[in-house]
């Protein structure tokens, strides 16, 4: 290193080890190289980190399924497959629901028919019992009792009368009463008043007023009693038990049965009573 003659710098030492200028420069250079070294080491570390990161990413890519160029992504295909499966299951579900509804309707139909048959069965039982009772005796009092029992126990009548036609006088005379005394009944004439008119017509009448208030002129039901086409009396019901809510099919059948059979049962019993011991043996009928 050189320096112009005659000029000195107060900041420069005279010997190498003692020259302050050189010392400063040396320190600067040392510092420069140190920092460069540190920077280089830092770069090496960053390089190492990045290489490691690249290896990680490569490993991740390797683990994924192979995808050929131009093909769809596997997730989209799987999704479409799933949608297709769902549609199939929906259709299957609809088919099953439809079948279920059909079976349910069939069951309801069977249940309805079963109830209908049960109802028929019970109606027939009622009719059988009523008919059997009516024709099981030739005793007038027993028949009167049977008619009353049918009306009370099988039909649910609370106030009623069984009237027989006195054809000579044109009067309807009480044969049996329930819930009302005979004396309470006014004289009923054929063709007069509501009851008399219905009996004269020969056709039953149902008013639909089942639970009163009691009015002798406004019965709930009037059913003429007949032997063939001839009217011989009537059953008049004014009121039913409070638990009875309406007239059902079986009630109509029972009234029809009484209309057709009560009178003939009464007539048979009446004839039997008149003939007493003169009743011919039944085998005589074989010669008719």
């Amino acid at each position: 290193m050189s320096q112009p003659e005659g000029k000195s710098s107060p900041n420069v030492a005279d010997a190498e080890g003692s020259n302050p200028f050189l010392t400063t420069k040396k320190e600067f250079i040392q510092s420069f190289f140190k920092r460069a070294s540190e920077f280089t080491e830092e770069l090496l570390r960053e390089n190492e980190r990045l290489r490691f990161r690249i290896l990680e990413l490569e490993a991740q890519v390797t683990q994924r399924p192979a995808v050929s160029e131009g093909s769809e992504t596997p997730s989209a295909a799987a999704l479409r497959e799933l949608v297709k499966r769902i549609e199939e299951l929906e259709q299957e579900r609809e088919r099953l629901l439809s079948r279920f509804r059909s079976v349910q309707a069939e069951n309801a139909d069977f249940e309805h028919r079963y109830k209908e048959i049960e109802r028929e069965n019970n109606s027939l039982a009622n009719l059988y019992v009523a008919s059997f009772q009516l024709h099981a005796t030739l005793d007038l009092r027993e028949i009167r009792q049977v008619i009353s029992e049918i009306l009370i126990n099988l039909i649910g009548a609370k106030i009623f009368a069984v009237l027989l036609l006195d054809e000579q006088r044109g009067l309807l005379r009480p044969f049996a009463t329930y819930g009302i005394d005979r004396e309470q009944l006014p004289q009923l004439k054929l063709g007069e008043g509501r009851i008399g008119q219905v009996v004269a017509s020969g056709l039953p009448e149902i008013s639909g007023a089942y639970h009163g208030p009691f009015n002798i002129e406004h019965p709930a039901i009037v059913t003429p009693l007949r032997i063939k086409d001839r009217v011989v009396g009537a059953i008049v019901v004014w009121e039913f038990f409070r638990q009875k809510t309406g007239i059902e099919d079986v009630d109509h059948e029972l009234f029809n049965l009484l209309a057709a059979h009560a009178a003939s049962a009464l007539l048979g019993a009446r004839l039997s009573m008149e003939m007493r011991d003169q009743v011919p043996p039944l085998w005589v009928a074989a010669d008719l």
Partner: protein
Amino acid sequence: MRQLIVYALSRVRGLNVVEADDGVDALKKLAGSHFDIILTDINMPIMDGLKLVKRVREDAQLKSIPIIIITTEGGDEDRQRALALGANAYITKPIQAPQVIMQVKRLLGIP
């Protein structure tokens, strides 16, 4: 209308029916025999149905037999009275065979 009751009971498998004319007759028939259930009307001669229920419930041998009342009396007070005396079921007339069958099965635990 015993016949209708008998018909209804005949629909319950395994039941044999013994009939009685009134409460006194029923007690005679109940004595010394085994019965599973009693069906009775309220309105009966000599001893009515409610007295029969009372007597059955007082009898150590008979008191556990279920009793069904079948009656024309459809009022709540009549029903309560019968049930308070010890009746197990209360059926009002007109007699409906399915109702009788249902109550008999219920009380006998028959499905």
